[in-house]
Each structure stands twice: as C-alpha cells, then as structure tokens.
C-alpha cells in the first residue's frame, strides 16, 4: 500500500495556507488544486503571466489566448490579473510567491533538486523551474519515491544536472513525507499502509532523528 497520484496531491494540498500565492508545477502538482482545503483561499500563479488561475474550460469555451504554463487551456476567476513574463518572474524571484509545489526526477538529502534534464536522452529545458526554486519562499517536491526499476530517487547526492542547489524544504512521495534538515532527511509521516521500515528501505538518503 502507498498513496496514489491523487492522494499525494491531496497530502500536498495540506501544505497550503490561507492567503498564500502559490505556483503549481506540471503533472501531480497540477492536481493539488482539486484538494485545496475548505476555508483556505490560495491564489494560483501561472508563470506565463497570470495570478488567479481557474479550472479547465467547458468544451467549446477554450480560449487560445488563455493557457497555463503547461500550455493547457484554462479559465480566469473574478480576482484574476494578467502581466508579462518579466513581471511574472520579478514576483517569483522577489520572493512574493509563498510556495512552489514541483515534480522531481531526483532529490538529495541536502535539498538539491534535479528535474529538468537527462544528459543524452531528454533535452527539453528548465522552463521556469530554476527561477521558482531560487525565488519562492518554500519548495515542496511531489514525486514517486522510486523509479520504475525500484531504485530510490531520494538520494545522498543527485546524479542528474541540478535545477537548484539546497532548495527543497519538504518531499512528498507515494510512501510518505520527509523534511530536509541539517544532516539529512527527517521522516514527517508515512503513507497509508507504509511502515517506517518500508520507507527507510526505499530511501538512499541519510535519515536523521
């Protein structure tokens, strides 16, 4: 047993606080918007130039001028504002965005994050990920704990080119939640049906405490 994609997103949504401006990455992080707790008002930023991102449009109401950072059609809300890319990253770099929830290929015990490139295989680009991890108040990573082949993706040191150095605060995986602390990672909680021994066995990184 472990969390599925939706349960991971629901757990990540528990990180949100009322009044926050938040950026959600592509993939599982996008699902977090489905689980924002009652009574918590957050404003979602899309780094292509929008605050106050609404849900996907109904069929027939798609607008080519209104997309998110994953190039998906979206909608606006009553509080939405639009701005250009320089302004968008000024608010990101300037620390105005409280938290980013992002996917990862690898994360390390010192908070290093790799999520943009596999040399010789995948050369797509970092998009806004490097700016986000350097600028926002808190970085939460949502990812599968291990690869398809069962190898840990929560490592002592990243093997892939970094997106940011020492930038991750909290890691939410299908097996549980870990915090980056001095000396390694600290277990915060286990996913449903996962024992501490399971979590430790799937983790290459040093677990402290």
């Amino acid at each position, binding site marked *: 047993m472990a969390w599925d994609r939706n349960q991971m997103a629901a757990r990540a949504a528990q990180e949100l606080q009322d009044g926050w401006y938040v950026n959600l990455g592509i993939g599982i992080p996008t699902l977090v918007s489905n689980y924002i707790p009652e009574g918590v008002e957050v404003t979602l930023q899309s780094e292509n130039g929008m605050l106050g991102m609404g849900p996907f449009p109904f069929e027939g109401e798609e607008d080519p001028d209104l997309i998110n950072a994953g190039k998906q059609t979206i909608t606006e809300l009553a509080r939405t504002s639009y701005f*250009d890319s320089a302004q968008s990253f000024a608010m990101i770099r300037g620390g105005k965005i409280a938290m980013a929830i992002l996917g990862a290929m690898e994360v390390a015990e010192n908070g290093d994050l790799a999520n943009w490139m596999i040399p010789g295989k995948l050369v797509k680009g970092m998009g806004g990920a490097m700016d986000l991890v350097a600028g926002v108040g808190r970085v939460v990573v949502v990812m599968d704990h291990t690869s398809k082949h069962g190898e840990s993706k929560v490592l002592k040191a990243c093997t892939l080119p970094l997106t940011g150095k020492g930038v991750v605060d909290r890691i939410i995986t299908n097996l549980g939640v870990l915090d980056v602390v001095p000396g390694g990672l600290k277990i915060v909680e286990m996913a449903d049906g996962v024992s501490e021994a399971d979590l430790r066995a799937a983790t290459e990184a040093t677990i402290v405490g």
Partner: protein
Amino acid sequence: MKKVYGTAKEALDGLLFDGMFIASGGFGLCGIPELLIDALVESGVKDITIASNNCGVDGFGLGKLLETRQIRKMISSYVGENAEFMRQYLSGELELEFNPQGTLAERMRAGGAGIPGFYTKTGVGTVIAEGKEHKDFDGQTYILEKGIVADLSIVKAWKADDTGNLVFRKTARNFNPPAATCGKICVAEVEEIVPRGSLDPDCIHLPGIYVHRIIQGEHEKRIEQRTVRKREAV
C-alpha cells in the same frame, strides 16, 4: 509618422540581413507573431539567432524557420514540443543556449531598459552558472547575466492604435512586452488597428515609443494542449 504597413513582408522591408539577431514574443503557441514568422520564412534570411522562450512546434510558429534551416542558434528556456528541433540540435546543426525562463525575460527587459547586466540567484550551483561572474550580496550568492539587445523584435498584440500603443489579451501578453523593448527596431502584428483615441490611455500595456512598425491580420491562434472539463450532469 507612419507606422502602419499593409503586409508583414512590407513591414520587414529593409530590416533583414543574414546572421541577424531577432527577439520574439510568445509562450508556446500563445501570442506568437505568426504573420511575421511566415514573412521571415518567405524572405529566406538565414543564420538567424532567435531569443524566444520556445521554438514553436513542428510545422507551426518558429518551427517553420527550423524546417527551412534558417535558424543558426536559439536562446530559449524550453523546447520540448518540437521533434525537428531535437533532431537538428542532437546532430549539431543547431546551436542552443538554455536560459531559465525568468532570466530570459529579464535579459530582454534589461536590454530594452539600458541595463547591460544584472545579478540573479537563479541557476546558482547549476550548469547555468558555469563561466559566469559570481558575487555575494548580504551573504547570498548571485550570478551575472547580460541584457539582450536584438537587431529586430517581432511581437503579437491584440489591439494597436496607429501610433503603436499596444494592448494584449490574457496570457497572450507573456514575453511580448519585454521582447518588444529589447529590439533596435520592433515590428508588431495585431488583430485590430483601432482609431487613435479609442484605447484608454490608462490601459495601454506597451507604449508606442517601443513599436516602430505595425500590421493587422488574421491569426490562426492554434491551441497546443486543448484541455476541458465535463459539465456537471444536472
């Protein structure tokens, strides 16, 4: 003062030369200067360096200039949607400089604002920082990035007046304002040129001082990822 031209080809007349540096607006296929890109294809200008967040898709947007091998180098943050791009890059035919998205936007903004360089913490400790000057401010390390000044900017807006004041629509604004400001010459294509005085001066997104030539035309505005939700059953 005459800024309005009849066609994209006429608007680019006298501005193009082989080896030139062009900054383009747009994010994915949203808010891209479709008509000016088509005119660049038709012109045959080659060995171009283009600063643009993305490089279109196969057969649309800047992807068209890849197919005709007119691009020598791209400065971009994300090129994942384009198989021809990947092929030319991996075979060494095309040069690529990855810039973090916010660094690319700020390089354009800075170039247009007379700022030759700026320090940012984006990319510190990554391959992006290699070979760049590092400097500490208040105990935090930053790297030096340079402003971009392009020979030509090509942008897409929603509306313009004949003096070049521009209004954008929703997320189609994206890189267009910073790209517009960083060109020695900026050509803008819009969906509608409206009479002088009909745009609210308080709601101009980019003042006409940055825009030298304007054309109006029909846009395909292709959607890259059509994503919808189901209506709730009543």
